[in-house]
Each structure stands twice: as C-alpha cells, then as structure tokens.
C-alpha cells in the first residue's frame, strides 16, 4: 500500500542479506574459542584477565548506552542491575556446583537466569522512569541502586542460597574465560546496534530527542522506555554474573553507586548514543585505569577515580557530547543518490 499514487524511481543499492550477517557474527563468536585457547597459552595471567575484563566492561557500557545514550533515560542504577545478576548467578552456581552439577552448563544457565532477574529489576525501575525525567530519574535510579545494595548487605541467605550480607559471597566456581566474556560483548553490541539502527528502533532515539513529539508521532513511549531498561538491565545482569564467575568472590560494596558512576563515565566520555564510541571508551578507560593501578606503586595513592572524576568534569566543560557525539566511528549505511528532481508539489 504505497502512500502516494505515483512514486519516483528510487535509486537502489544492493545490501548484504541478513542470513549472511547473522552467519558472520556466529562465526566470529565461534572464532573466539580458538582465540581464547591461543591467548590462554601465550599471554600472561594479568594481560589475559585485563582482556577479559575489557570485554565485560564493553557489555556494561553498551547496555547502559542503550538506556542513557540512545533512549536518553539517564540512569544511575546500573551497578544495581549488575548486582542482581552477580548474586543470582553466584549463589546458584555455588550451590548447584557444590551438589555436583557440571560447572559449564550450570554457569550458562545461571548467567542467563541472573540476566533475566536483572531484567525484572529493570522492569521495576523502568516503571517510575515513565513519569520522571532527567535529573529526577537519575536520583530515583540511584535510590533503587541503594535499595538493592542495602538489601544485599543485610541478607545472609535466602533459603538454601547464601548471599553473605556485608562480608560478600565467595567460593563461586571460576567459569568465565575470555571466550565467555567476548561472546557476551559481541552479542550485546550486535543487539544494541541492531535496535538502534533499525526502522523500528528509531523510536528509542526519538524519545531521547523529544518525548512529546515522539508520542505525537504514534510512538508508545512507555513501551520503548521500559524495553530499554529491561534489555539494558538484562545485559548488565549477565555481565554481573560473569564478573562473579571470574573473580570467584563478590561483595555488596562492589556494586554501589561508585560502580554505576564509573559505567556512566564510559557512556558520557564515549559519546552518548554512539555505540562504537562507548566501546572505545570502555577499552581505553580500562587500559588507563590499569596503567594508573601500576602507577600507584610510584605515587602511593589511588589516582584512578580522581582521574575518572576529572575526565568527567573536563569533558562536560569542553565537549559535553563526548568523544564521538552521536556519531559512529564507522557505519555501513549505504546512502542512496537522491539528488534527482522531485515532482512538482
């Protein structure tokens, strides 16, 4: 049902078919497995760990980018979602591997379960997001994060599952490898990219740009805002679960506002809305913070968060749109040649 009776001939460009793209990403994920073996064999433990952490950082930053950058719902509670995933996955993993489950299969299951529970938390947070804007939303999500923190800190166990209150949860089986983390990173980036750059997903950015106008154009703003929170929280939960299964120990302090702000910093510095920019920021800042950790031996003070804070302030003063703004480093959208004259209007 064309909108107009007679349309102009439109210049068309060939596109890569979808199945080919899907196959490519699948192949890339599978390729991470031998790469992982290679890295394990040739890299020292420290560098291997840093690489794995970079991947998890990408998951966290990209998932928050969907909420903060693309949909424009400034959230300060990402560490809370991460905590839900980390504790769900951690406690189940510890319990069921203890009774003889296969660690790999159990981890796969519980990482996803952790993500799903975090998504439920995202749903609960997303609902107030419908009524709040800007700084109020930021404070409300911060409040949610604090509630999650206080609940975890005050709970010793739920049924047979240990939470560990303030002391934290340890003895989580070590499952996360570079392969797991890289897979999570690829899936997150591809998902968020496809959402952001599809016709349907344009609604997310429209809400960021002007919520009133988006609603007037028939966008169900409620649905998209909550969806952004749910998807973002899911991936944050997955990252949390993988973190727990990497460090083998988690404690409530790890998932407090400072963590949320660190993730926000990645999004803000990379460029709110730019997926590649945020991925780049996640990589660069991870390397930077490792370098600062090494520097601690010289300066005897932890400069890491001071540098983060200064970076945030200076970025806001000099380049508030972040490194990349809303642009991507590369994007394969083929522009059509549309300069032919239009019919008389």
């Amino acid at each position, binding site marked *: 049902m064309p909108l107009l009776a007679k349309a102009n001939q439109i210049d068309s460009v060939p596109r890569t078919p979808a199945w080919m793209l899907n196959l490519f990403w699948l192949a890339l994920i599978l390729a991470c497995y031998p790469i992982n073996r290679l890295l394990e064999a040739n890299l020292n433990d420290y560098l291997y760990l840093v690489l794995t952490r970079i991947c998890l950082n990408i998951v966290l930053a990209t998932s928050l980018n969907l909420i903060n950058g693309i949909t424009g719902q400034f959230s300060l509670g990402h560490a809370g979602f991460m905590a839900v995933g980390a504790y769900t996955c951690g406690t189940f993993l510890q319990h069921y591997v203890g009774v003889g489950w296969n660690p790999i299969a159990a981890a796969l299951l519980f990482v996803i379960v952790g993500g799903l529970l975090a998504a439920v938390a995202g749903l609960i947070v997303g609902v107030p997001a419908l009524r709040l804007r800007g*700084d109020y939303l930021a404070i409300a999500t911060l409040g949610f994060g604090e*509630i999650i923190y*206080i609940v975890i800190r005050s709970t010793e166990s739920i049924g047979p599952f240990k939470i560990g209150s303030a002391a934290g949860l340890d003895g989580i089986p070590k499952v996360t490898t570079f392969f797991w983390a890289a897979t999570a990173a690829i899936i997150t980036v591809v998902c968020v990219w496809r959402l952001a750059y599809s016709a349907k997903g344009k609604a997310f950015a429209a809400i960021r740009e002007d919520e009133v106008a988006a609603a007037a154009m028939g966008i169900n703003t409620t649905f998209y805002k909550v969806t952004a929170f749910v998807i973002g929280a899911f991936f944050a939960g997955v990252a949390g679960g993988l973190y727990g299964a990497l460090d083998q120990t988690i404690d409530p302090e790890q998932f407090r506002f400072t963590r949320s702000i660190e993730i926000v910093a990645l999004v803000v510095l990379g460029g709110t809305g730019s997926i590649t920019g945020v991925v780049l920021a996640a990589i660069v800042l991870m390397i930077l913070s490792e370098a600062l950790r090494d520097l601690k031996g010289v300066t005897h003070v932890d400069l890491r968060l001071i540098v983060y804070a200064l970076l945030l302030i200076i970025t806001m003063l000099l380049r508030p749109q972040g490194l990349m703004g809303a642009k991507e480093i590369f994007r394969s959208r083929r522009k059509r040649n549309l300069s032919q004259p239009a019919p008389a209007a």
Partner: protein
Amino acid sequence: MLQFTQELIIGLSIGATYALLALGYTMVYGVLRLINFAHGEVYMVGAVSGFHFINLALRWHAPLALALTIAFVGSAIVCAILGFCIEFFAYRPLRGSPRLVILITAIGVSLLLQNVVNLNFIYGPTPRTFPAEVQKGLNTSIGIGGVYISRLIIIRFALSLSLMAVLTWIILRTRTGLALRAVSHRFDTAMLMGVNTNRVISVTFILGSVLASVAGVMDGLRYTITPLMGVTYGLKAFVAAVLGGIGSIPGALIGGLLIGITEEFARFYLPTQYTQYADAVAFVILIFILLLKPTGIMGSTAVEKV
C-alpha cells in the same frame, strides 16, 4: 509512651540535620533548577575538617567548648570556600547548558571530592571518630520526666533551630534574601531588573555549604567519618527536600524531620533481624513520592508547555 517520646526526640534530632542539608539542596534548586549532587560531599568535607580542627584544638589543650566552637567555625569557613569554588569553577561555566550536562559535572565533582579526601595525606579511607573525650563529654544525658536526652541531642537541636532562624531572617529580611527570592521566582526577569544573579548564586552556595558543614560536624560527633559518608546521607537529605517539595524552604524543614522520624522509628520498631533494612526506608519513600506526588508536600505543580 516514654519509649515513643524518646524515639521521637532522637528521630527529630536526626531529622534536624537532614533538614539542614535539605535546605542546601532546595535553595540551589530554587535558584538554578539544579540538583547539586556534590552537596553531600560538602557535608562530608564539613565532618572531615571538623575532625581535623578539633584534633588540632585539643592538641593545643583548648577546653572542650572552645574546641567544639573552633571545629564548627573552622569547618564552616572551609565549606563556604568549597561551596563557592564548586559553583564558580564547575557550574558557572555551564550556565545555560542542558541540565543533564550540569548533573554529570556535579557527579564528577562529587566523585572528585570523595577521592581527594580518600587520599591518605588528606584523610584516608579508614573510618574514624571524633576524639573519645569529646564523645564522652557530649554523651552525658539529662533526664526529664523519664525521657533521657544527651547533651549532643540538645546541641543538635539548638544549633539546627538557630541556624534555620538565621536563614529565615536572611531570606525574609535582608536585601540579599530579597534578591534570592527574586532569582528563584524568575531568573531572567530578576537579571533584567538589575539583580546581580551571579552574586546571589554564590551566596546561595555559601549559605547552603555552611549549613551542610554544621550538619557534617554534628554527625561527626555521633557517627564514624568516612569519605563516602556524604553519598547516602546526601541522598537521604535530597529525599527530604523532594518530600517537602523541592525549592520550598519550609518544605525542606518538614521533609527532613519526617525522614528522620520515619527512619528512627523503622530502626527501633522493626524486628532485630530487619533493623539494617531501615536504611532503605528513605529511598522507598523517595520512589513513592516521585511516583505519586513529585512536587512534594509544599511544592507547586508545573505543566510542560507544548
């Protein structure tokens, strides 16, 4: 009933410090429509500098009352300067930017302050308390009809109330206060009418920071001091400001007292194994107000123009 009165008094005294801090949030929001995220950190710096001042004074063998005065005045001066600098260097260059840009800057400032205080040669991450002799001097109680009130609580009340009285006087009776009211009523018009808005904003930050420093020292007398103490506490005070209706000065007072009482009652009346959850009460309140009546008790409604 006695128990109830006792808890009520404790709750009110906690609420009084929340109210002092909430006033800072509400005044800044009034003139700039900005949530000064770093306000909790000003409070923390107040507590930390109070700690340093009192130790310094005691090392010179100052009597307790004098040491306390030095701590209060000294930290008020430190915080006034800090508040002025935060506004001047971080917020002023961004005047007119989108609110989120300023909010992110405020988060940056707050992270910076936490981690600067976290440095060992400034304070360090270890939680510390005020010297034992100060605590001992203040914890002696006075009994009135079966209700016991410590000297600390009396000081908290007296200081909070007199500071609020002074603030009310400044706002209602001085030229600066008039300018402040004009700016929070309508920023642009006040500027066109010749009000020096920059001066008014600086004064607002200084006043707010002085109140925060007093709250900080008072809490330092009671709790342990850490570089992160300002976050939770600042957030709760912000909840108080929102509960009362952000931008409203009497609202901040009411909100602060209500949060203090609710928290204390939750702490006291919840079964022992749940006491720790009392900390979450303020945040639950926050989410409920934001959902049900975001303008708070004393706030007015505003409709977005389309």
